[in-house]
């Protein structure tokens, strides 16, 4: 009985730790400006005024922070394009490489694996200047493509690592059967292998998408106008503007977080199993 009670108190503490910071910000995003200064936990008179700044561009153009807020829908669109492209590139390049590493014994596979692990351990700041110069010389600054390419290279080693682990858990008999039926290796990959491994593919795809959505350094360096700026960079503009009320920033924060949050809720089980299983397996 006491053990049970202790367990629930323990669980409650964990839930508070995991949710309280975000819950407060979400609550603030519904507060009128004056309530924040009273250090409240819950809006007394809830309002959607902080959100309307982001959508009612015409009506509220005089408000502080409106110049940043009006660019939000476009920035979300940019993040969507970049994230989706990063996800697709990860899945195609990643599954091909991981399939070879997991299934086809070949000379140099250990070397390749070390190459992938090594590139994963390179910190972003270490290559930011050459990357910037590279993108500049190809005329890719302020395009989606520059951000897509940099995000893909950062997520790809992890994707390959996870997928390799995941692919190795698929029973060999499956491909034997496919091959006996006359499939080529690529045919076996596409027709038998990929359908069975869909959960793992979804997990790494979502993982890459969320990583790209949240990446900041390269997005900050490569994008200069709203033509390509993703939401993280736009949100950081608030850090420079001192007069913007925190209620408005909070609403913006919630808007940025919304999509990754919903995705992580929907694919929660797949992410936890997919990532956990292959890292430790």
């Amino acid at each position, binding site marked *: 009985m006491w053990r049970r009670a202790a367990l629930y108190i323990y*669980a409650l503490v964990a839930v508070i730790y995991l949710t309280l910071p975000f819950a407060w910000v979400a609550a603030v995003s519904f507060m009128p400006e004056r309530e924040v200064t009273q250090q409240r936990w819950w809006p007394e008179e809830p309002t959607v005024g902080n959100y309307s700044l982001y959508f009612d561009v015409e009506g509220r153009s005089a408000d502080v922070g409106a110049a940043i807020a009006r660019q939000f829908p476009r920035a979300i669109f940019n993040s969507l394009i970049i994230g989706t492209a990063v996800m697709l590139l990860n899945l195609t390049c990643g599954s091909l490489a991981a399939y070879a590493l997991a299934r086809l014994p070949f000379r140099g596979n250990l070397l390749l694996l070390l190459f992938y692990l090594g590139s994963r351990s390179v910190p972003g700041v270490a290559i930011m200047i050459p990357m910037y110069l590279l993108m500049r010389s190809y005329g890719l600054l302020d395009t989606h493509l520059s951000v897509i390419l940099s995000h893909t290279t950062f997520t790809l080693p992890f994707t390959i690592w996870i997928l390799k682990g995941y692919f190795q858990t698929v029973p060999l008999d499956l491909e034997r059967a496919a091959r006996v039926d006359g499939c080529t290796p690529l045919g076996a990959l596409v027709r038998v292998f990929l359908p069975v491994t869909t959960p793992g593919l979804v997990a790494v795809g979502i993982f890459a998408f969320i990583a790209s959505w949240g990446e900041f350094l390269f997005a900050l360096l490569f994008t200069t106008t709203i033509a390509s700026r993703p939401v993280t960079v736009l949100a950081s503009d608030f850090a420079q503007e001192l007069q913007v009320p925190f209620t408005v920033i909070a609403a913006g924060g919630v808007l940025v977080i919304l999509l990754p949050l919903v995705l992580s809720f929907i694919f929660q089980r797949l992410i936890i199993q997919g990532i956990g299983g292959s890292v430790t397996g």
Partner: protein
Amino acid sequence: MTVIKPFHLMARTRDVLPLLLNLPAVILLLAFIAYPIGISFWMSLHRYNLRRPDQVYFHGLENYANILASSEFWNALWISLYFTFMAVLLVIVIAMAIALLLHESFRGRGVVRALLLIPWAIPGVVNGLMWVGLLGDYGAFNAMLEDSVAAINYLFGINIVYTGMASPFVALNAAIGAHVWRSVPFACIIFLAAIQAIPTEQYRAARVDGATSWNRFRFITLPWLYHAVLVVAIFETMNGFRAFDLIYALTGGGPGDATHVIAWQTYKEAFARLDFGGANAYSYLITLITMTLAIIYIRLLYRRGLVQG
């Protein structure tokens, strides 16, 4: 039964297909990681300041010598080491505590598990902005900290002046706290998977032998988790040294130079001073440090025979 050889390909072409399959990934990583790293090293050996673009010339290891002689570098290095050490330690402890909880069966476990991913889904910059609010003058956490400092002052009859994020000590540790909060879920997922892989017979046997729950944790759970702890330690060490977006949004390196972690220092060197030569030398030093740490960890994994080569 005859063993069917892997695919009816001739010996010479057998190696070609896997390499072809790896080609797209390898090209991407060569072009956007390996090549920039090479350029970065080459540039670090040059005097290259964007303010004087006409004066680019080779001067060997001088950038490195200048950095190693500057107090800014050592300050940034110590801050990063402290930041990373505390972050790794706290992430492991907190993530382990939550993973052990999620391994128990109780009503509402599914809810806790779903909430686990919240901090992870929040981008680093937004996380920084969030904690600006939480720890700012009107922030909910700031109020709690103020109250607890007042309580400590009252209880011990001392007089600590609490200045919030204007205090270097509070700012640095708040940044660590915010960084840890966002890093816990990933570590927790790895621990949870590792805990669930422990054979339950061992626990049953231990219980028959009358082992206490602490001893069961100490002698069964912990040894089984050694591998997972090292994996998390590697990930978190790298993340700690990379911490940039959070610092950018939360403290901007301040107050003073209290939160000048090494990634921030590199960024400043490059884009505030426009000293590309010096900044590249900085980034090379970071890469060397993280790689050295990674090699130490990986050797530890090898020694335990947990990685097969």
